[in-house]
């Protein structure tokens, strides 16, 4: 069954473990000007004493209808049929940045040779039944590798349970 990476935003604490695990898996070294395929963003709302800080771990979303793939003039970007991963063949990449322009999420990055690089869903791991490195490492299980719609089902059932436990309480108050 096709799976993809989900982030439960409520559980992301911005620790950066996914960012590092990605670099370890893919031999990415910042001192060589390379960047992780995952990044952490922090959002701060409000002011003391009511401030609210949220974190989010981002990476390629491996879109079904991928703007980067459509925009690529050389066919360097393709979809892996088994896993659904959007992958880039660097030998075909001409570094034209079309993918970067078309990607609404800012994912494609260019290495020191000017070729595009991004998350490949840890394709080689997924093929042998392992989860992507970022998912494996996540200490709060915020990142999961699940069949499409699984996260929604989990959320929905939790919501349904909450609803069921809340309604009688409302009833007793009245």
């Amino acid at each position: 069954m096709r799976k993809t990476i989900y982030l439960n935003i409520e559980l992301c604490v911005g620790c950066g473990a996914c960012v590092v695990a990605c670099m370890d898996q893919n031999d990415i070294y910042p001192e060589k000007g390379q960047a992780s395929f995952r990044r952490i963003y922090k959002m701060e709302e409000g002011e003391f004493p009511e401030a609210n800080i949220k974190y989010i771990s981002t990476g390629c979303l491996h879109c079904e209808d991928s703007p980067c793939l459509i925009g690529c003039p050389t066919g360097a970007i393709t979809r892996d049929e088994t896993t659904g991963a959007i992958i880039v063949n660097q030998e075909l990449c001409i570094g034209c940045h079309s993918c970067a322009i078309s990607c609404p999420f800012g994912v494609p990055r260019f290495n020191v040779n000017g070729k595009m690089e991004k998350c490949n869903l840890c394709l080689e791991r997924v093929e042998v039944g392992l989860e992507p490195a970022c998912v494996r490492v996540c200490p709060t299980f915020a990142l999961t590798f699940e069949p499409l719609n699984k996260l929604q089902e989990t959320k929905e059932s939790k919501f349904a349970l909450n609803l069921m436990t809340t309604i009688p309480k409302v009833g007793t108050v009245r």
Partner: protein
Amino acid sequence: MKKVERLLKGKIPSPDTGIEIKKSICTICDPTTQCGLDLYVKNGKVIKVEGSKEHPYNMGTLCSKGAALRQYIYSEDRLKTPLKRIGSRGEGRFSPVTWDEALESIAEKFNEVKQNYGPESVVFFAGYTKYFRPYLKRLAHSFGSPNYLTESSTCHQATAMAQKLTFGQPGRPDIKNTKCLLVWSSNPFHTNPGNARAILKGKERGMTLIVVDPRETPTTALADLHLKVRPGTDGALALAMANVIINEKLYDYNFISNYSYGFDDYKDYVREFSPQRGEELTGVSADKIIKAARMYASIKPAAIMPSASPVVHHTNGVQNYRAVFALIGLTGNYDIYGGNLVIPESFIHQPGLFLTKEHEFVQPRQWSEMAPRIGIDRFPVWGEVIDEEAQAMYIPFQIHSEKPYPLKALIGFGMNYRMWPDPKGLLESLKKLDLFVNVDLFMTDTCKYADIVLPACTSVERSELRCYPMGYIIFTQPAIEPLYDSRSDVDIIYSLAEKLGLDDPLFKAGYEATVDWILEPSGITVSELKKHPGGMFVPNPIKISEKKYLNTGFKTSTGKMEFKSSVLEKYEGIPGFEAIPIYRPPKYSRESTPEMAKEYPFVLNTGSRLPMFIHTRTFRLSWTKSLRPNHPSADINPSDASLLGITQDDLIRISTPKDSIIVKANLTQMVQPGVIHMYHGHPDADVNTLFEGDYLDPLSGYPGFKSALCKIEKV
């Protein structure tokens, strides 16, 4: 791409790729974590690091520091051979020597000092990591020196002191069974993911979460109630909560009347701390103080989760934490399931649900048979309450004063001089020693001052015994050979024992025989442990019962839980030593030193954890550094920054009357207005240099790292 190439690209273990998985543990942070590791090894080299799924602590996960372990193992800064200093101290010029040469010259000098001044003039210091501590303590005492000291002189022991003064022995938060968790100044999401996962589970089953923390953290974000206390005012907050609990009669009358000492005096003192006064002192609204007190006192069972050091890194730290721990007695939550449960430690400060002979092993000679430990004439309560070690903060003072006796030689394992307040002062004192040896992984700034430097290896290159609270035990085996000419700390300790000519049967028997000896009461053996390279559950784990004090009493001199400390009563009249957990503002604060506060209006709070660093241990790794690219930087609230015309990443100068450092400004709501947070120990901007060497809590000797006064200027 061919199949094998694809497998290699994905680093997939298989006979085709030649990649094997080897088990180990990560000890970059220590001692309550030690995540299990799956190391992907090819041709004797680690090519990838992953959390071990079978390990019950981390269940396959790691933090950002552990995930960066490969860079830690293969850092270019690793020491490669033993070194002897050829330049001046601090210059960093060394020449390689053999292990024999290095160890023999250390042993010769130690024995010479022993003969001329006594064994106590040789000092044994343990920094990070902690696995070798029992063996180092044994080495010190076997040699005859009482002076085994550790980084716990600024980390955990003051919290232990506050707990021991109150209960005789600490109770751990039973998070799994509690209905209300009061986290007092800890953010396990960035320090101890196991506890963080326990909190998440608790929240799922409806546990109430109250968090006391000056900062905005992922833990406070989950809280039902977040008390944003001003740094250093924890004691006042706890006393104001006690005021509500007592006035509203929410306390445990039975526990107080039968099992406590000094309640009436405590109650009289608590009267002074109305919620309104609490609000003035702490910045937490009276309304929130009342709410928190009611929640904690009326939801049963309730547990307090302390932290190792934030609350005690104040000049009034121990008294503040005593006031907090008094709440556990007040509400009868001591040693009950779901409260603060007393669980015996098995090995290296960790419970593992098995018995050992660790205490007998580490203390082959009683304190009474040795000279007084460093620091206990200045910090006498330490000598009475802390059984493990001497107080390292006093090292520089004793080197200079030579009283009550001179210190002549020091061997540090992972010693970092930046741990001390006024670290430059410590360095100056080290220069006075006849011999200073440091064992480390890397050529650190501390090593540069050593006469002899010895290369240690990482956790994955050695063998170590560890245990976990769920009744799990591991004796790791090296996943790769020690790199270069490095050795494990334990090997170094055992070789040194031999060269010193110590007549110690366990050092003579060797490491594994020692581990068998320590484990003897548990029935677990090294040979059994070796069959389980990833660790194993302890057979026949000991059962932890509740309210053990009913049979044994409390391990205090009154045999009761003490609202008024019978130890401190002996020091009546000495400021700071009050028997009731009095509240006194930090030594340098708006309240204590209003004149100084006019010039230095900000509270300087150092060392609050960032997720990618643990002390200085991952500063040198590009992976962890990339998570906070603007470091060294200080956290400042945007409203303060705007008043001072400071924008993100501007250079700012942080000054105290002692010194100043220049760092980048990191604007964030994580820090409250009026407070500056600076992470400690950075070689380019060491915030500890801003503290005087004697800015210490008179009870514990702990530095007031989390509240001093400073000013900020845009550079």
